[in-house]
Every structure is written in structure tokens, then in C-alpha cells.
């Protein structure tokens, strides 16, 4: 009996902590409705009014339509290219034996072994040499390239468990290889593809480092994270605008999380092998 109660004490602590875990986010939320003086004087209190004035002001002052538009464009392009190319490559690599296939596979998964920080300098250089610094296309290419290795790796692992007989049937029926892939194989890859899409959506939406490196200070091509960082990370931040900005930048991720929770959590465990 004694031991049972001991364990439940631990459970209670863990559950209470889970509320504390969200505390920083809750504090940001309630303070985002206050004028600066109220933040300092009634930090823990609920705001006097839930007026959206500061939200609207931030939205127009910092050109949120452009920022959100850019971030959406980046996320959609990256995810679409990944969803098209990664399964094609992963499928063919898993089904083809031989030197060429082996070399291609290694080329694709090298980035999973070397840390991004070790080549980001020369990557920035390469993008600059190609005249794509500050451009949207340059950023989309890099962002897609960085998402590719894990996507191919995860799908590659999955393809190995897809029965090869199905494809053979299709071949005997006279379907071409490309059609076999799109009609038979791709639908079978749906579970792992969903996971990949979900992970890459979050990664691209939340990206700051790559956008910093490739787009830098070009206001036209910044994503929302980079813009918030450039605007508000100075010593004396303008918190009255920063807090609504932070909340607005988080809302899409949070909604996405609530809808896709199962896939996100599943995807994390599937992708965790990445070193």
C-alpha cells in the first residue's frame, strides 16, 4: 500500500509540472494583451481587457501578410518537392542493387552523419557564388535539400517492408515502370509519407537559421521567424509589439500540432535514429 501511494505522489508531481511546463507560453499569451506598464505591474494577472488592438497594429506595422505569405510559400514548396522526389528516390534506391545505387544512397545520407554547422559557412558561400543570396528560390532550394536526407532515409526503410510481388504483378500486366510507381507503390507509402510531410512542414515553418544564412536581412524574402528575430532580439525590445507577434507566429504551429498530433509524435520516434 505504502509503495502505491509513493508512486502516485510522483504522478501528481509530474502532472503538476506539466502545467508549469506550459507556464511560459501562458504568460506570454496573457501579457500580449497588456500595455507595457501593466506587464511590469501585473505580470501574473489577466489583462484588463482582451482588446485585439495591439494584434492589429502589429499585423499591419510589421507587414504580417507578407511574412506569413513568404513562410507559407516556403513551407508549401519545400514539402511539395520533398513529397514528389523523396519517395521516388527512396523507392528506386531500395529496389535497385549495384554500385550506382549504393553511391547515390550514400550521397543522400551523408548529411545525416556530418553536422549542419560544419558546412553551413561554405553553403552560404556557394549560394552567394550562384547569385542567390537573399532570393526566395535560393532559400527554397536549400531548405528542400536539407530536408531531403531524412525524408529519403525514412521512406527507404519503409519501402523495404513493402511486398515486391505487387509491383511484379503490375509489370506482368504491362504497366510501365513509372505508372507502376505512381499507381501502385506511391499509395502504399502513404503512412510514412504523411509522417515526412508533417515533420518537414513543422521544420520549414519554424526555421530561423537557414533563413538567416541564406536570406539574411532582405525584408522581401524573410520568413516570419527571421523577421521576428531581426525586429525584436535587440537589447531593449518593443514588447508591446513583440508579444502579439510571437503569439501570431505560434498559432499555425499549435493548430497544426492539435490536428496532426498522432503523426507528429509517431514521426518523431520514427525519425529519432537520425544522429
Amino acid at each position: 500500500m505504502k509503495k502505491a501511494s509513493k508512486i502516485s505522489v510522483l504522478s501528481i508531481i509530474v502532472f503538476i509540472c506539466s502545467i508549469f511546463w506550459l507556464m511560459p507560453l501562458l504568460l506570454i499569451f496573457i501579457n500580449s494583451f497588456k500595455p507595457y506598464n501593466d506587464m511590469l505591474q501585473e505580470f501574473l494577472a489577466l489583462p484588463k481587457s482582451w482588446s485585439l488592438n495591439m494584434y492589429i497594429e502589429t499585423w499591419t506595422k510589421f507587414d504580417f501578410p507578407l511574412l506569413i505569405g513568404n513562410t507559407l510559400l516556403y513551407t508549401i514548396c519545400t514539402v511539395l518537392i520533398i513529397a514528389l522526389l523523396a519517395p521516388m528516390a527512396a523507392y528506386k534506391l531500395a529496389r535497385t542493387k549495384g554500385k550506382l545505387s549504393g553511391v547515390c544512397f550514400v550521397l543522400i545520407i551523408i548529411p545525416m552523419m556530418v553536422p549542419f554547422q560544419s558546412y553551413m559557412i561554405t553553403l552560404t558561400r556557394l549560394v552567394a557564388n550562384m547569385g542567390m543570396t537573399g532570393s526566395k528560390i535560393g532559400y527554397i532550394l536549400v531548405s528542400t535539400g536539407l530536408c531531403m536526407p531524412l525524408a529519403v532515409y525514412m521512406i527507404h526503410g519503409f519501402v523495404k517492408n513493402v511486398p515486391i510481388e505487387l509491383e511484379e504483378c503490375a509489370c506482368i500486366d504491362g504497366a510501365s515502370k513509372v505508372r507502376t510507381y505512381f499507381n501502385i507503390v506511391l499509395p502504399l507509402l502513404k503512412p510514412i509519407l504523411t509522417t515526412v510531410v508533417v515533420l518537414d512542414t513543422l521544420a520549414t515553418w519554424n526555421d530561423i537559421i537557414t533563413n538567416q544564412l541564406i536570406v539574411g536581412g532582405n525584408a522581401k524574402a524573410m520568413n516570419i521567424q527571421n523577421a521576428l528575430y531581426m525586429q525584436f532580439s535587440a537589447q531593449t525590445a518593443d514588447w508591446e509589439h513583440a508579444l502579439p507577434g510571437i503569439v501570431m507566429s505560434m498559432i499555425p504551429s499549435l493548430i497544426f500540432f492539435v490536428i496532426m498530433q498522432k503523426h507528429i509524435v509517431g514521426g518523431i520516434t520514427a525519425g529519432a535514429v537520425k544522429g
Partner: protein
Amino acid sequence: MKGKGKTKDLLIFALFVFPAVAFVLFSTDVPFLMNLYYSVFDWNGISKDMEFVGLQNFVNIFTNDALFWKSTAFTLKFSVFYVVIVNVLSLTVALVMAKEKKSSSVGRAFYYIPYIISLTAISLIWKFILGPGFEALYQVTGWEMFNWSWLGTAKLAFFVVVIMTVWQNLGFYMVNYIAGIIAVPKELIEAAKIDGANKFQVLRKVTVPLIMPAVSICMLTSLTFAFKLFDVIMVFTKGGPANSTISVAYNIYKEAFVNNRYGMATAKSLVFVVFVLIVTVIQLKVTKSKEVEA
């Protein structure tokens, strides 16, 4: 006839695989090779003349670069704190969450949410809490700890970085541990209990050995994360105060983009890759040898 089929196969292979390879070549493989090339030059990244210096950059790193070793010390210290704290906490939380099935999904989500929020938001949130937030709390409570300069003192800034990264990433490890714990066969735990083992013995002798795959994944990812610590530093502390929170990766970044010592930065990148690889290999060997099959 046969040759023709082979060419066709090759064409189809190229159609399927080469686009993906091209993306990775561009974003990683080529930059990595450029790294090897630049690392033997003395170059500021802009000017036309690059002076070939052979291995001098590498010699400089090991003999004449106090900041690099300071950043190495910081990274090692951070790794120890981060790996221990995040794994102990997330395993504890996971043990509770895995058992309480119904009530735990909301709790799990609460722990997990910081992990899906962007680093920009995270670092601004903590800046706000440690700045205006603590100022307000100090006025209400009068507790001295709210009056400390958390980001302005070297020792405190270190702990802020540890606490913030643990806070953000705990959910990730928790999810992995929960997956491992759920996979442990119930019969084994029942059998141990019937044999008279108490809760702690069950945990130590049955559960932990069986979740070693999850442990090794979590240890490995947390260790490599700690070694590669960069984003948080770049966005949050910028290495300050007084260079006390400079990580190795951030040191490399600064060398290239602030000090304009390109050749040196690329040489450091290579040393860094070797560090990370060595740690990864050792870690894999150690944890793999401890894994048990159910």
C-alpha cells in the same frame, strides 16, 4: 536488345533518383567538399587572393586559439548537464505517462508543445520572462533571485541555456521513452512481481534493460544535440556575456562571419566533424553493448 533495356533501366533510375541527389549535392555534399578545399587557405572570404598555408590553420587551432578551447570547454560542460538532466527528467515523466493511459494525453501534449515552437519564439519568450517578467516578480515578492541578472552573469547564463534547452526538448525524449516503455511485455513485469521483486527492482532489473534501445537513441540524440549546440546560442545569447556561452559551432560561425577568417573557420569545421563522429561512434558502441532482447 539487352543493351537497350539496360539503357532504359538506367534512364528510369536517373529519372527517379538524380533529382533528389542533385538537391543534396547542392545543399550539403558540395559545400562539405568546399570546406576541405578552403581549410588549407588563409582567406578572408571576400578578397581575390587566397594564400595557400597548408596545415597551418589546423596547427593554429591546436596551439594558438584560446577561444576555441574555451568554447570546447563550454560545449563539454553543457553536454554533461544537458544529457544527464534531460534524460533523467524525460525518463521519469515517461514512466508516469506510460502508466496513466487515459489522463496522460493532455499532460504529454503539455510537455511536448515547446518542442514544436520555433526557436525565435522560444528565445523571445525567455528573454521576456527573464527581463520584464522577473522585474515584475521582484517588485511583488522581493526575492533576490528575481533581481539577479540572469543573462548578464556568466554562471547564470550557462544555467539559463541549460534550463531553456531542457524545457524545449524534453517532450522529444519523453515520446521516445514512452514508445520504449510501452513495448516492454507485460508478462515479464508480472513475472518479476510474482517472484517478489519490488517496484524499484522491477524498474532496474526488467524495465530499464528492456528499454535500452530507447535509452541509446535518447542518449545519442541528446549528446549530438549538445555537441552541435548552435541555434540557441546564435538566437538567444549570441555567446555572451563575455564569451561565456560560446559553443564550438558558434565559435566557427563567428570566425567566418564576424572575424572574416574563412580558411580558419573551415578548418575548425573539419575538426568539429571529427569530434562529433568520435563521440557518436563511442556512444553507439557503449549503448549497443548494453542492449538486451526480451
